[in-house]
C-alpha cells in the first residue's frame, strides 16, 4: 500500500517533463479509445453468436419440391408427419406474402411469385427437447418424397463459429492494446529515467532507496496513464452511444455497442491502464536502478 501513499515532496522530486508527459497521456487516451471499441465489438459479436445460436437452433425448414399437381398433397402429408412428431412445437406453411418477403432483399418487393416455380416452405419450430432429425427425415421421405428437411446446421455452424472468433479477436485486440500500452510506458519511463540521471544520483547520495526513487516515477506514469485513459474512455463511450440504434433492418453494424450492464465494463479501462503503467514503470525503474553503480 505504501506505493500509493502520497508524499507531496516525493511526488515532485522528478522535474515536470511537459511535452513528454503530454505524449504519454495522449497515447494512453488513444489506446483506451481503441480498447473501448474492441470491447464493444466483442460484446456485439458475442450477442450475435448467442442470438444466432439460440434462434436458429430452434427452427428448421421443410422444403417441398414436387410437380405442381402434387405440391398441395405432399404439403399436407408433410404437415401430418410434422404434427405427429414428438419435439415439434409448431409447423406453419409459409404463404405467398411471407415467401415474397423472404425473397424481397434479393429480387425486390414486386416479385411475381405466382409465376415462379418456387418450392413450398414449411417453418418448423422445435419445443424444448427438440426432435429426432434423422427419424423425421426418414418419415418425410416415406410420406412426402418431395420434402427436404433443412435444420440450418450446414450454414448455422460456420456463422456461429465466425461470430465467436470475431469475439475472441476483439478480446485479443484488447490484450494487444494492453501490451502495447505497457511497452509504450516502459519506453517512456526508460527515457524519463535516463533524462533524470542527475536527480537519481542526488537521491542516492542522500540515502534514498531504489523503491523510493522508483515510486516517484511510478506514481507519475500511473497518474498520466489513468487520466489519459479516462479521457479516451469518455470520448469512446460518447462515440459508441452516438452509434445508430440496433434494429433488425440494420443487422450487425447497428448492434455494435453496449447494452445494459455492459456499459460498466469500459469504466474499468482507466484502472487497468493505471495498473499496466504501474507495473511497466516499476519494472523499468527497478531494472534501470539496479543497473546503476
Amino acid at each position: 500500500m505504501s506505493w500509493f501513499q502520497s508524499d507531496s515532496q516525493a511526488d515532485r522530486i522528478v522535474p515536470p517533463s511537459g511535452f513528454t508527459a503530454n505524449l504519454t497521456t495522449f497515447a494512453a487516451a488513444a489506446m483506451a479509445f481503441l480498447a473501448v471499441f474492441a470491447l464493444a465489438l466483442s460484446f456485439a459479436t458475442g450477442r450475435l453468436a448467442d442470438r444466432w445460436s439460440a434462434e436458429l437452433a430452434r427452427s428448421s425448414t421443410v422444403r417441398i419440391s414436387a410437380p405442381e399437381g402434387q405440391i398441395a398433397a405432399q404439403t399436407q402429408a408433410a404437415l401430418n408427419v410434422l404434427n405427429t412428431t414428438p419435439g415439434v412445437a409448431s409447423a406453419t406453411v409459409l404463404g405467398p406474402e411471407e415467401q415474397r418477403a423472404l425473397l424481397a432483399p434479393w429480387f425486390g418487393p414486386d416479385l411475381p411469385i405466382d409465376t415462379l416455380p418456387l418450392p413450398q416452405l414449411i417453418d418448423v419450430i422445435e419445443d424444448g427437447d427438440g426432435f429426432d432429425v434423422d427419424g423425421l427425415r426418414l418419415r418425410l421421405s416415406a410420406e412426402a418424397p418431395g420434402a427436404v428437411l433443412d435444420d440450418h446446421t450446414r450454414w448455422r455452424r460456420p456463422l456461429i463459429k465466425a461470430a465467436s472468433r470475431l469475439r475472441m479477436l476483439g478480446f485479443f485486440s484488447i490484450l494487444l492494446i494492453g501490451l502495447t500500452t505497457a511497452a509504450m510506458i516502459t519506453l517512456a519511463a526508460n527515457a524519463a529515467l535516463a533524462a533524470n540521471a542527475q536527480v537519481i544520483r542526488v537521491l542516492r547520495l542522500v540515502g534514498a532507496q531504489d523503491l523510493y526513487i522508483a515510486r516517484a516515477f511510478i506514481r507519475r506514469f500511473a497518474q498520466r496513464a489513468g487520466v489519459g485513459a479516462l479521457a479516451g474512455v469518455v470520448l469512446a463511450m460518447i462515440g459508441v452511444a452516438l452509434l445508430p440504434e440496433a434494429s433488425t433492418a440494420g443487422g450487425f453494424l447497428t448492434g455494435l455497442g453496449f447494452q445494459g450492464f455492459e456499459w460498466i465494463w469500459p469504466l474499468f479501462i482507466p484502472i487497468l491502464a493505471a495498473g499496466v503503467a504501474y507495473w511497466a514503470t516499476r519494472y523499468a525503474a527497478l531494472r534501470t536502478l539496479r543497473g546503476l553503480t
Partner: protein
Amino acid sequence: MIELQNVAYSYGGGELLSDMTLTLAAGSFYFLTGPSGAGKSTFLKLCYMELIASAGSVSVFGQDVRDLDRDGVALNRRRIGVVHQDCQFLEHLPIAENISLPLSAAGRAGDAQNLDELMAWVGLRDKAHRLPAELSGGERQRAALARALIMSPDVVLADEPTGNVDWEMSQRLLTLLIELNRMGKTIVIATHDLNLIRMAKNQVNARVLRIADRRLQLAGAGL
C-alpha cells in the same frame, strides 16, 4: 565509524590510490590534503560507498561495504552527511525542500521540525523558497552543509566545501563544521586550502592527512 584496510582503487587501468589504512574514529576531525588529482574525492567516495575499493576492505559502521546491497548502502548513507564541491541539488526544488530531501527519502518527511532552526543556523532562513540557481556560491555551500546535517549524521564528509567561496565565507563554513565536531560528529574535510587548515588548528584538535604518490600520509608538522 569508517575503517579502511590496505585499500587500493584503480581507475582506467592505473592505480589511483594504494595501500591505504585508516580508522576514522567517532568525534575526530580530519583534513585531507594533496595536489589536484591526487585522489581526495576518490577517497571520500570510498568512504561514502559511491565507489568500491579494487583491493582491501572498507568497513562503514562495522559493516564491510562489499557485503552491503543497494538498500544497505542507502541506509548507511543516511548516517553520513556529504557536502560536495558542486553541491548537487535538485535544481527544480526550492532550497528548503532540497535541504529536507534526506528526510523525505528516509520516509521521515514529518520530522522536519528542525528545518527552520537549521536554516537559520546556516543563515538561509529568508532564502527557503529560492531555487538553488538563485543563490550565491557561499549560500549554496551552506545549503549543502545544512542538507548534509538534516539527518543528524554521525560523520560529515566535505569535499572542497570552501572551493567556490571567498575567505570570509570559508571561515564561516569552517566555524560551522568545528561547532559540529564539538557536538561529537566526525568531520573529514578535503581541501587544498592550507590557510583554512592553519586557522582550524587553532580551534580544534585536527589531524591532517595528505595523499601523495597514491598513498595516505600523516602530515601536519609543517602546517
